């Protein structure tokens, strides 16, 4: 094909300029500049490209560690109320994490994952999106859902799998989802959301919406990530790939996860516009996501954002991170690079926050979280018929038969079952 195309070009040129026609028979034009659509630059020097010949992609930030603006032209024009909501939602996530983590330890729910340390990646990116945008999470993005309006009750109901859980108790805790908020339900298998997000973006082209896809630097090692990046680039999908590079995939540190300049450097390789940001700087995350969203919409192309952050908590309630990292390392990060503190200092500098407000909000949040928690625990479990639903769109004959048998059985023996625990 390539050769045919080149030959055709040459012939066409020759026909237009008859004096060149003679050249065709004796000379062939070798210096093609295009390899079936991609540009070629020729060289006579044998040079291997070393990964060290590039300096690291710089990390964009707006705030310093004390919450001061580094360059006033980069300070985003965010309304005061919105800034305050960013901070309040961070505290809310922290408070909720504490209660739910402890409740798993007490055996009241089976599983939990905390979000400590990654609050700025949630709030900064969520605030820059439109509610109409479609979001795919990995599993550690509950702050994004909260920002979009997911209520404490909805969270607690999911973790308890009660009858108000939209998942009808069929999923493990933290597998949230909300059609109302355009947030696709979390799926346990790692990285499957990345190609799905590219596919959704392909379907939603030219609808003034983008797809936001969160994933970790560990998930970026899965084959799915490669497929997603390549397809989003070649199919011009308006999707933001948002990598939360938090340093660890369970116990695997980034140095064992990849070589080279992190996840960001892969973007240009796929032909994807890319930026790296300080994931612990909520304003930097906001600016990057906002600009990425505009780029996606204007050009109908993907963007890759790599946000550098740190997973302060254990991977999940199944993990004990002291087995592979020191408490000192964690403490130092909490002390010196704390996204919540950083935003608080910024707000205090702007006179938007103070100790009194902090106390008041902490108190209120704790009360609200515990109220929602206690309420969810008392709510009835889903109706028994739910065990026959949702495997197929229409309940097939053999399941319908079992359901009817069960119904008759319960009519006859209802005293033998704790039916009072289940909704009717």
């Amino acid at each position, binding site marked *: 094909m390539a050769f045919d195309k080149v030959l055709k070009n040459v012939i066409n040129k020759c026909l237009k300029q008859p004096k060149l026609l003679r050249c065709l028979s004796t000379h062939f034009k070798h210096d093609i500049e295009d390899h079936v659509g991609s540009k070629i630059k020729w060289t006579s020097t044998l040079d291997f490209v070393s990964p060290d010949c590039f300096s690291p992609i710089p990390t964009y930030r707006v705030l310093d560690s004390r919450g001061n603006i580094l360059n006033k032209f980069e300070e985003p024009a965010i309304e005061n109320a919105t800034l305050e909501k960013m901070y309040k939602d961070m505290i809310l996530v922290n408070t909720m994490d504490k209660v739910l983590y402890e409740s798993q330890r007490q055996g009241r729910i089976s599983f939990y994952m905390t979000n400590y340390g990654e609050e700025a990646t949630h709030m900064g990116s969520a605030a820059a999106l439109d509610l109409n945008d479609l979001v795919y999470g990995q599993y550690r993005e509950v702050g994004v859902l909260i920002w979009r309006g997911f209520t404490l009750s909805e969270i607690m109901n999911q973790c308890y799998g009660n009858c108000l859980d939209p998942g009808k108790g069929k999923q*493990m805790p933290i597998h949230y989802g909300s059609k109302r908020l355009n947030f696709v339900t979390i799926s346990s298998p790692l990285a499957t959301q990345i190609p799905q997000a590219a596919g959704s973006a392909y379907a939603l082209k030219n609808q003034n919406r983008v797809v936001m896809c969160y994933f970790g630097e*560990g998930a970026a090692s899965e084959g799915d990530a490669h497929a997603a990046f390549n397809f989003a680039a070649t199919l011009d999908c308006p999707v933001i790939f948002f990598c939360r590079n938090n340093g660890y995939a369970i*116990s695997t540190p980034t140095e064992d996860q990849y070589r080279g300049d992190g996840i960001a450097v892969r973007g240009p390789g796929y032909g994807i516009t890319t930026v790296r940001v300080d994931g612990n700087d909520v304003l930097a995350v906001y600016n990057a996501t906002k600009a990425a969203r505009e780029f996606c919409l204007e050009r109908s192309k993907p963007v890759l954002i790599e946000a550098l952050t740190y997973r302060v908590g254990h991977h999940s309630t199944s993990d004990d991170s002291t087995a592979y990292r020191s408490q000192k390392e964690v403490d130092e990060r909490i002390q010196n690079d704390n996204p919540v503190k950083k935003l608080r200092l910024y707000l205090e500098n702007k006179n938007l926050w103070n100790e009194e407000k902090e106390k008041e909000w902490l108190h209120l949040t704790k009360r609200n979280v515990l109220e929602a928690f206690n309420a969810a625990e008392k709510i009835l479990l889903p109706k028994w018929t739910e065990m026959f639903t949702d495997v197929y769109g229409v309940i097939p004959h053999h399941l319908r038969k079992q359901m009817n048998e069960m119904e008759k059985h319960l009519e006859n023996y209802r005293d033998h079952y704790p039916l009072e625990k289940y909704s009717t």
Partner: protein
Amino acid sequence: MARVAAVRMLNAVTSKYANTNCRTLSMTSVAKAKEVAVRDALNAALDEELERDDRVFLMGEEVAVYDGAYKVSRGLWKKYGDKRIVDTPITEIGFTGIAVGAAMAGLRPICEFMTFNFAMQSIDHILNSAGKMFYMSAGRVNVPIVFRGPNGAAAGVAAQHSQCYGAWYAHCPGLKVLSPYSAEDARGLLKSAIRDPDPVVILENEMLYGVKYPLSDEALSKDFLIPIGKAKIERDGTHVTIVSHSKGVETSLLAAKELQAIGIEAEVINLRSLRPLDFEAISNSVKKTNHLITVEQGWPSHGVGAEICARVMESDTFFHLDQPAIRVTGADVPMAYAKALEDASLPSPADIVDVAKRILST
């Protein structure tokens, strides 16, 4: 793949089953038997085979520094170092392909999946690369590799983390598929698999890792091997044959105990190997008992039990049955998250007892 629940409530599982007394159920000599947990039996088998053959190495997610998500490789990285115990990035299809390539080049990789749920990413390399390379190369390239990790229903981790892959892999020619139940099985089958010239899939059971079983002196020997393709009669009986594998063997043995109390002597066959399948053992037993029940945690459709029943139909064993053979299986639904439904979705001793009573008309 999913890290969400990989190591969930390991301790809870261990303690829940720590008191299960399986001593009376084993057929191995118990006089001097040492109680060993399945996890430790696997660990010792790995250690011995790593020591015996320097072509053997272990690779997978979290297997080195972290000692494995389920601590099966505890201490091995400290002993053998980075060259033999290799932590990998999270790319199942990637490290499975690499392990297969290493086997093609003459090494003997043991490829650990954090759970077999994540091996779905790797299935192309397991079936098309490892399983068929010997055939496709007309016998010139063999793939001596072991794929292992926990399989089957765990506890409280819902549909995407709880399923049995026994029937999936046993479907495929070119693979050998083992499904150990006890510490003896785990130890002997793993050692045999590592020494085998063909690709072997070992489906361990997450819920059995912490359970202790007696190991005889013979089983503790460094040269203890269990032949691939041979079942084990876990319990002799004359009235009904119960065939099972992995966790289902435990359930079957508990059922056999209950049946004994009402005068039914069940013969329990532990398949150990799903491919090749020891049909001779099943057939001999059915010829004695004239009744057959199969027990598995996997789904019924096209499953291990279905295969056994079909082989009975196709052979003269059929004429020895007094009643139709019955399958006791996992429920034909994605695994429920709710504990009560999860329990109900898996075969229980009571399910087996009911079926036995029904076919024996007692």
